[in-house]
């Protein structure tokens, strides 16, 4: 076959490759937007606080048991039966709920923290199970297990990533480039391992602990939409108007029956 005869085929192959790369090239990398020219910092001397609890009404569903038999290291690193962390309830309060300011912050500028958030794989579980992180803040992912894990962030807005950590002590740092609530992180080797990252462009978020309690502090005066997110029960929102130096308390109540 003469080279001249190959040209149309080569052009077609190149075009197909280009189309394929465009189709599979993933999302455009979103970068944090530059602050507006009139952006201001929060005056902490005038800021207020929103505190509250997330309650679970009804009998909390039992967390399903985890079968770790697929990896002997996971079995040996967990004493007794392991269960999922879907419903952690203390004194009627629901933990592992991500509470954050969804809407209402206008023209504020916040420095990006340089201190990394740590996500540890230990006992074939992620610690923490739910966490918040800022856009551009380093996320340090550590393998503390004597087995291998892959770390797979199933992002929709941010760039999806998947990498392996085959040895104990391995650590890798990633950053998210856009606001996204929530980014599920999972291990495909150990299908039960999951964690959720709430990625925000401001510092007003918390994960409920100690009986479902949370605190959003240093919040400037304004009217805000506060959202509570739970991995199984979904979301609830409330509107809160906060004056200068004011402290307000709110309560979210989820129904246990929805999650059962």
């Amino acid at each position, binding site marked *: 076959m003469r080279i001249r005869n190959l040209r149309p085929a080569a052009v077609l192959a190149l075009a197909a490759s280009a189309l394929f790369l465009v189709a*599979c090239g993933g999302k455009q990398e979103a970068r944090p937007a530059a602050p507006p020219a009139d952006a201001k910092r929060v005056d902490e001397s005038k800021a207020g606080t929103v505190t509250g609890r997330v309650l679970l009404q009804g009998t909390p569903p039992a967390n399903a048991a985890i079968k770790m038999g*697929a990896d*002997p*290291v996971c079995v040996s690193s967990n004493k007794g039966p392991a269960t999922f962390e879907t419903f952690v309830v203390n004194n009627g309060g629901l933990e592992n709920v991500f509470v954050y300011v969804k809407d209402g912050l206008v023209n504020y500028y916040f420095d990006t923290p340089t201190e990394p958030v740590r996500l540890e794989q230990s006992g074939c579980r992620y610690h923490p199970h739910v966490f918040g992180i800022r856009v551009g803040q380093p996320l340090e992912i550590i393998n503390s297990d004597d087995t291998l894990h*892959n770390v*797979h962030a199933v992002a929709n807005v941010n760039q999806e990533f*998947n990498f392996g950590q*085959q040895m104990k002590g391995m650590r890798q740092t990633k950053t998210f480039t856009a606001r996204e609530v929530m980014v599920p992180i999972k291990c495909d*080797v150990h299908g039960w391992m999951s964690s959720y990252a709430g990625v925000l462009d401001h510092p007003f978020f918390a994960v409920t602990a100690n009986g479902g309690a949370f605190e959003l502090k240093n919040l400037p005066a304004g009217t805000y939409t506060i959202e509570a997110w739970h991995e199984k029960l979904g979301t609830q929102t409330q509107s809160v108007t906060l004056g200068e130096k004011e402290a307000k308390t709110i309560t979210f109540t989820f129904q246990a029956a929805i999650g059962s």
Partner: protein
Amino acid sequence: MLWLHRYAKLVAASTVLLIAAGGMVTSTGSGLSVPDWPNSYGYFMFSFPLDKMVGGIRYEHSHRLIASTVGFLTIILAAWTWRVEPRRWVRWLGVAALGAVILQGLLGGLTVLFFLPAPISIGHAGLAQLFFCITLSLALFTSPGWRATVDPVDDPTLRRIALTTTAMIYCQIVLGAAMRHLGAGPAIPDFPLAFGHVVPPQWSVPIALHFAHRLGALLVTTAIVATAGHVWYHYGRRRELTRPATLLVLFVFVQIALGAFVVWSGLQPIVNTAHVVNGALVLGTSIVLTLRSFRIRFERVAEATPRRTVMPHAPAEVA
């Protein structure tokens, strides 16, 4: 030539095993448990330590090892066919098998590197079935029975319905692959009804895909029963046709039962994979029946095709 036929059967059987391994990867959600490709966690594929094959890696890495083995077997099959086969079109079919297995490997790698995009994953599943059909066809074309046929059936109706049935089965398999890779498997949780109704009372893309697969099963079953009925009625004494026709009916009813159990078991991975593998057997059997119904056409093609000089050590063949 007999050994080439036996070897082609071995490759076809290995392909069934490979489809089963791939089915387990998807059914267990292990597709991304090995995040790199062609290496596995930085190791050369064949030097990956066995003690690290835990959890989802067992399925994904086993699939890669079996795929590599099938790829190697296919290289030998293509070379062997090229060397000893006197029919040019069969030689080129061997080359097509090699091209298909290379493309299949690339699709498998790309789907890992791009986090299982549905079009590539569905393409990977669809090409697997085509590759199986090619290896099966090679086994058929090199078989003594195919070459010894002296009075092939010449029935345009049979050719038409057999070909249509095969095409329908393939479309149904691709639809099933789309269902699996788009997460539409659990979209309708009951069977044989859909949300307690004959027709789903609510609709979404996953529900539509799932329901289309069920309707497809009805159509394919009807086509298979019609084809088999035609064979039994008109060619009851032609075993080369009645055997695949009977097998086809058997496989399709097993397939329906497996499909029901997939729903009832909540997508249990082994049941799900058995459904995928049996689907390949339905397609493979239909291909054999279709090719045998076209046997007379092949003979004409063979007569019209100039023969290559046969190597001195290869036995002379009659197409």
